């Protein structure tokens, strides 16, 4: 227990960031909640419509549901690339003797490049006319029949816009997981090896349980980032063709700033907030249950 005076000073130091957080995060969320009960286009009078926006969103809006499921697929692809990729690369790195720093830097590089540059880069990579890198590679390895306009094909566009986002942050999560992996006590691993544990057993019984707390944090970070994904799909395809790569976030943005339907856009944003909270809750619940068992 801290002495009284020091407790006050801690509170004094904690207060400014808390106020800042309230002003920058909680206030806009409350404002969205408030606006979501209105019909308002920015210049007209605000009209109270009760739950009409929510009813429309949940029952009458086909684009909303389309973009919701698109967002889930987008999230799944990002998570597999980011967490799966990061775990594989980090595990391989620990067994590497030389050149670790170089590889770490190379993997981290995309995370520091600007999003706009990445979007333009991938538009070129996916292009068919003029032939981009991906189609050229397919052609060289004899898979010419798979060549296509990746961003114009309604069946491939969602995966095509998810991949750059996943690729981009793999290095960042790799770094976090790598830091956790090298902290696993060597004695434990050596003892297990002496007992005849295979590499796989070593990983599943010793290493992974040891890094679980870091893994939970990383999963939550990646999931919330994935659910809020916006810039790369917006820049690459603007949600198109049709609504094939429309995410909840891009749809909300367009509803607010193109359709000037601020009330309905707030309703969608309230849904996104709830969706993020539910996702984090689910992750914590599942991982806790697993840890308990």
């Amino acid at each position: 227990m801290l002495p009284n005076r020091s407790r006050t000073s801690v509170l004094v130091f904690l207060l400014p960031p808390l106020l800042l957080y309230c002003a920058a995060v909680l206030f806009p969320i409350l404002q969205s909640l408030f606006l979501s009960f209105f019909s308002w286009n920015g210049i007209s009078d605000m009209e109270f419509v009760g739950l009409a926006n929510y009813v429309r969103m949940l029952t009458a809006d086909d684009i909303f549901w389309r973009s919701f499921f698109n967002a889930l697929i987008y999230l799944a692809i990002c998570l597999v690339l980011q967490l799966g990729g990061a775990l594989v690369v980090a595990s391989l790195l620990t067994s590497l003797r030389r050149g670790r720093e170089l590889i770490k830097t190379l993997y981290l590089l995309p995370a520091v490049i600007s999003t706009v540059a990445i979007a333009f880069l991938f538009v070129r990579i996916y292009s068919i006319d003029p032939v981009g890198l991906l189609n050229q590679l397919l052609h060289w390895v004899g898979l010419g029949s798979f060549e296509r306009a990746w961003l114009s094909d309604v069946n491939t566009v969602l995966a095509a816009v998810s991949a750059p986002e996943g690729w981009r942050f793999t290095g960042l999560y790799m770094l976090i997981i790598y830091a956790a992996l090298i902290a696993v006590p060597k004695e434990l691993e050596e003892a297990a090896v002496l007992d005849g544990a295979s590499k796989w057993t070593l990983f599943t019984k010793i290493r992974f349980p040891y890094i679980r707390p870091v893994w939970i944090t990383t999963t939550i970070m990646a999931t919330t980032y994935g659910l809020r994904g916006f810039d790369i799909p917006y820049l690459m395809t603007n949600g198109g063709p049709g609504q094939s790569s429309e995410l909840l976030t891009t749809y909300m943005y367009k509803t607010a700033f193109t359709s000037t339907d601020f009330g309905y856009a707030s309703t969608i944003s309230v849904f996104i907030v709830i969706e993020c909270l539910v996702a984090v809750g689910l992750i914590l619940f599942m991982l806790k249950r697993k840890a308990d068992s």
Partner: protein
Amino acid sequence: MKKLLRAATVAAVAALALTACGGGGGASDPANVSPTGEIKPREISWLLSRPADGAVINIMKKLADDYAKEHPGFALNLITTPDRPSYIQKLETLAAANKLPELFDTDATPFAQQLAKQGKMMDADKLLKSLGLYDDYRPGALDYQRFDDGSLYMIPFQFELEFIWYNKALLEKAGVSVPKSLDDIPAMCTALRTAGITPIAIDGQDQWPLERYVAYQPFRAAGPDFVQKLKKGEASFTDEAGQKTVKWMAELGNSKCFQEGFSAQGYSDAQNLFTSGEAAMYNIGTWELPSLATDKLNAATRDDIDFFTLPTTNGSVTAANEYVSPSGIGMAVNSKTYDPLVSDFLRFALEKYPAEYAATGALSPTTNVQTTIPANATPLYSKALEAANGLGDKQAMPWDTQLDPTTNGRLQQELVLLVQGNITPEQFTKTMDDAIKQNAPKFFK
């Protein structure tokens, strides 16, 4: 802590309610175009969506400098956002916050009409008449800026004609000639494809270029009224003219008229495809004359390039000399900040602007000046300018300035799907008619 949270929530809601109430008001009389009083020089701003280094901005900068010499303390602050969708978002957000500057650009959109109805923009009809400039303007240039009810709230700074540019050598190679009717185009595309040529280069990323095509058939079959009725739900895509355009768009897609993967290709991609001699046709306006009709154009294709105007159809109600002839995004004058200074500066600038603009080789929105043809121009340059003299009375309006923003967004998305063959004409018709039914009433009350 709980108490504190509750208090904070109440305060937040109260603050919101207060700001919501403070949204309106402050506008002066939009018809009072000649305010009396002393001219007090200050800095004024123009929020605009034009190329940063383009003729309009350069000329207005120069004119503002000249004006400032006589009126020390005056300055014109030009804030440009050339990317149109970003610009519109900026404009709408500023309008929502009631923070529009003295001058701002807008098309004659439903949103702008609401601003006009609320008295936030000066009546441009009265303004131009009071400055004695009204009769100098081309009627078509002013008509493009008008709302459906004929009222005028924006001042044009350009005048453009949209043509279909084509490559003679490629058409010859495929054994096809310039289409006599819009209905000839799908078959023409098939012939060009057979000869291994991309028929039409299009910028799919910006979406408006494809939306031009959907406007053509109804303009020929039913005239300019069709879209005005369609947007309010008084006409529909199931009507004859509507079905004609839906089927024609699907046919263009079936005949592979546009380059593969067009929806992800941008403005310069499309232009390069045409100027490099890979694509046979390209639909663009006279604002591209400096790159299509001067020696800047690729020497290999320069002599092969020509243009034709929008073909008519069998039973067309509009004439061959009537097509898309926009006067660009217009400039609106904020009524709240309109005072003797703004009025005097506009008189000064608008009088001098046409001569300066015509000297850059562009078509002025007025008829009192002669466009200077640049020294490096090809013969096509003057041919294009001459077309402006032979225009008919009606003009095809781009649909993106007509429809309400939500329907417009949906149309742009569905058009890509229709042309790519991802949806059937029936699905397209139903989706779009439903979208209009749902969204139009909010904007056209």
